[in-house]
């Protein structure tokens, strides 16, 4: 259905227009902060209305906007959301005011430009998740790099230039092949429309090439081991808001790409390469966990933990079971909330101690109880503590992995244990460690501004942990549809090619058959 009010266009262009206005206006630093905050609040309200208007139980496209854009070249301005993308859109929008708040005192130079970058980032991020035209998708996908590059390169830490260039080159080099894949798909089907391309029937070999080209771009963005090396550098050097956006939204673009394009457009190839992707996912989980265990820098620790968490997401995606994919989507959302919050807290403590070394920020339990309370909550959530949000997603992913193969499920377990180890180590040291200097006494506890941006995230952490039902209701129909389509298309391609069915598909067949029987009974 076509939307009566263009929510999605507004979500994309409100921050972009705001950024242009901010660029042109002559305003002082405080005014720039307030303007961005106001835009962020409006953006959040828009996103919440979108969430409220989303029809539960409907697996189709919602809030569709379709206009001709460049008919001669086959381009359309086509936006829509479904259960796979809705939460990412809302998350991108909600983070804007929170990021503004957490940078309020953190950023003191070139304040206006900083907020321009923040606004442009948000607009582009929303665009990536709602674009239904491949070129539009690619435009937002690339456009987002420039503000992120500037965020790291201008407002980052001491090695910001190195980190920002590495980030830019890595991600852009990866996505050049994505462009080639987009062109190849267009020439094959004569359209850039994603829903139309999903109806297409592609030969197996063609699918494999497209899959590989796209998967490289997405794997770099996720990032999956061994394409992750840009991430710790970027995270450590970026300012807090940059780290938050990077972890909460940017990384999700890769996994979203896997779901939407690799499974939606090239199902047979995804099936064919699933063992490889699963192996890399397990490697990411273990590698990220082990390396996080050895970190002394808080940001680096959280960055490597992100590699591990994103490994869970890709693990869930490529087992192709209902539980696995739903779990992957839940981890995407929850990782966005929790890791974003953790990065904000690291930023808050950095403002006090001017160091991100764990040893310089110990023994805070006595002096900063509220801070440690929040930190403990988010750290527990991050390690997958039952009753908090991440638990639901990781549990579902592990269920999916066990459904697929017992050994695969077993391989994922150490990841969860490692998460407990490194997060508890961090939390314990910060709360009860022997402080290196008595400086901690003089630091004030959380102020009103910090309460303001942490409370919503804490609320979401608890709410999604205790009552994940509503969130699952949003994603379940879309995941069902995705997997049913996937299965049908793989069978079609395999029959044409006479390729033997993979174990993953056999499992899915059995799973879906069992489900149908259950429904009959």
């Amino acid at each position, binding site marked *: 259905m076509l939307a009566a009010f263009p929510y999605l266009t507004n979500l994309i262009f409100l921050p972009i227009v705001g950024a242009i206005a901010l660029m042109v206006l002559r305003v002082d630093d405080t005014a720039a902060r307030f303007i961005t905050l106001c835009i962020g609040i409006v953006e959040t309200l828009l996103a919440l209305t979108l969430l409220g208007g989303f029809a539960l139980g409907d697996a189709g496209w919602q809030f569709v906007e379709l206009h001709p854009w460049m008919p001669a070249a086959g381009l359309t301005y086509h936006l829509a959301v479904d259960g796979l993308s809705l939460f990412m859109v809302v998350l991108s929008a909600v983070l804007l005011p929170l990021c503004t708040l957490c940078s309020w005192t953190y950023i003191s130079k070139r304040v206006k430009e900083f907020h321009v970058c923040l606004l442009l980032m948000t607009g582009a991020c929303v665009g990536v998740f709602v674009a239904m035209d491949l070129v539009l998708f690619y435009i937002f996908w690339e456009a987002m790099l420039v503000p992120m590059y500037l965020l790291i390169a201008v407002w980052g830490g001491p090695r910001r230039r190195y980190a920002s260039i590495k980030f830019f080159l890595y991600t*852009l080099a990866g996505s050049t092949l994505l462009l080639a894949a987009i062109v190849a798909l267009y020439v094959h089907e004569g359209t850039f429309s994603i829903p139309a391309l999903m109806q297409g029937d592609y030969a197996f070999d063609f699918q494999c090439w497209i899959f590989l080209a796209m998967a490289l771009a997405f794997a770099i963005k996720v990032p999956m081991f061994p394409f992750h090396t840009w991430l710790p550098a970027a995270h450590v050097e970026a300012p807090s808001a940059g780290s938050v956006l990077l972890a909460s939204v940017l990384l999700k673009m890769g996994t979203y790409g896997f779901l939407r394009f690799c499974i939606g457009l090239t199902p047979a190839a995804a099936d064919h390469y699933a063992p490889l992707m699963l192996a890399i996912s397990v490697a990411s989980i273990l590698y990220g966990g082990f390396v996080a265990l050895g970190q002394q820098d808080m940001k680096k620790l959280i960055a490597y933990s992100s590699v591990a968490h994103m490994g869970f997401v890709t693990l869930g995606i490529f087992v192709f079971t209902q539980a696995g994919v739903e779990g992957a989507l839940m981890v995407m959302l929850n990782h966005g909330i929790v890791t974003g919050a953790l990065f904000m807290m690291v930023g808050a403590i950095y403002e006090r101690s001017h160091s991100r070394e764990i040893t310089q920020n110990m023994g805070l339990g006595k002096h900063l109880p509220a801070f440690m309370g929040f930190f403990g909550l988010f750290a527990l959530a991050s390690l997958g503590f039952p009753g908090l949000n991440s638990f639901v997603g990781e549990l579902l992913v592990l269920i999916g992995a066990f459904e697929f193969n017992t050994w695969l499920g077993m391989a994922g377990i150490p990841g969860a244990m490692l998460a407990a180890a490194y997060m508890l180590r961090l939390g314990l040291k910060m709360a009860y460690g022997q402080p290196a200097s008595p400086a901690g006494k003089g630091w004030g506890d959380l102020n009103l501004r910090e309460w303001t941006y942490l409370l919503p995230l804490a609320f979401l952490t608890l709410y999604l942990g205790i009552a994940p039902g509503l969130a699952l209701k949003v994603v379940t129909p879309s995941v069902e549809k995705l997997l049913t389509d996937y299965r049908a298309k793989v069978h079609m391609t395999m029959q044409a090619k006479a390729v033997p069915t993979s174990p993953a598909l056999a499992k899915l067949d059995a799973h879906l058959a069992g489900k149908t029987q259950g429904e009959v009974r």
Partner: protein
Amino acid sequence: MSQYNLALCLPELALFGVMAVLFVQSLTPDGSKRCLCWLPYGGLATIAAALIGMGDSGSLFYGAYQIDALSQFFKLAVAVGFTIAALNAANPPQLDAAKKPDFYFFLAASAWGLMLLASCVECVTIYVALEISSYSLYAVVPLRAKERQAAEAGVKYILFGAVATAIALYGLSYLWGSHGTTYLAVLAGKDFSLAGAPLAAVGLAMFLCGMFYKLALFPFHFWAPDVYQGSANETSAFIATLPKLGAAVVLVRFAALLTPGLEVTLLLAVLGAISMTYGNLAALAQRDIKRLLGYSSVAHAGYLMLGLVSGTAEGLAAASFYALVYILMNLAIFWVLCRLAPDGKNVALEDLDGLSRREPVLALVLAVSAFALVGLPPTAGFMGKLMLLKSAWGHGYNWLVIVAVLNTAIAIYYYLSLVRHAYTHDADDVPAGSVKRPMGDLVWGLALAVVLLVMGTMPGAIFDLATAAGHAVMP
């Protein structure tokens, strides 16, 4: 219809008028030479004439001179390019006031030659038009005479030009000898395979060398970095942009003769691939920005081949569109360079340090044009590249598409370093906003940046023109 219906040649006549006034002014005594403030209006008049002539079609001079959608598209592009280049070159710092009318006269004459080139459909006429546009540039390059590099650049440009056109002329003799005609329309039906007509195939390849030289395509690119570096910034801005249009239009016309898979087409594709890779790799090491842009123009000449080898109207449209986008991107970046060098010196990467603090507007224009040259959305460069890739895929040149996208990844590094120096390297001694710049400089620069962004997001109307141009030569 008359063979001499000059109403069809409005843009050429308008530009010729500008030339004539400049010629008279260059002869007058010194006092009256200084006022060249009318020149931008002359340029605008040329653009207006090109717009009026947009829908014209016809044939003049016994079929040697064709007015069609393709020629009118390129004439408009030349008129726009000339106007921007003239605006950009207002008050070239290293030039005596007395030489100014001569300088502009040569630029206008070269642009006029390029306009003629857009309409030529007969090989000898093409050759003559090519030489008109080249000779005036030979005169302009060494005008920065006080520097040794300028003399070297001038000599290099003339010698390379002479060799290239000599090869072209030699090739033309083969072409004529084997098929007995120099009219493109007649040649279109002939055989150009090495097996069927070896002389014609070789002759065609050699004739195209003249265009390769203008386009700075490998292996005729050696002049580009040296000439860009050696000539004045304003002159480089002209040489780096407009002659490419002339070469592009002739190549588009010739590409209509070629079918994919032919040896000559394959040669174009191979040269394109080498050009992209070599140009980008060489640009990585440059510190002088004009030299960097020189090598990058070699790479861009390679990208253009994507559209030419596909053998479809879409491909030719994409090449035409990209040629226009390319001159706009390059003029925008040269606009910034010329503003940054009031003393006329070459600008090195380090000179950009702290630009975003000193002059935020120029830094923004630089960033937009650099990202457009990379082909990053949402700029015109991205749309142009997308059209090129789209047109080449599926016509036997998928490998060339892969080479092109991989090259984009190489190109990012050096274009990004422009932005990096402007935004992240702080020159400590210059406080923010310390340079007072005339409003006009900033407004025109911003206008160019906005055009690049608008053409990236809403290229519809201009792409339709390019499509019409593509269909004009290959229905």
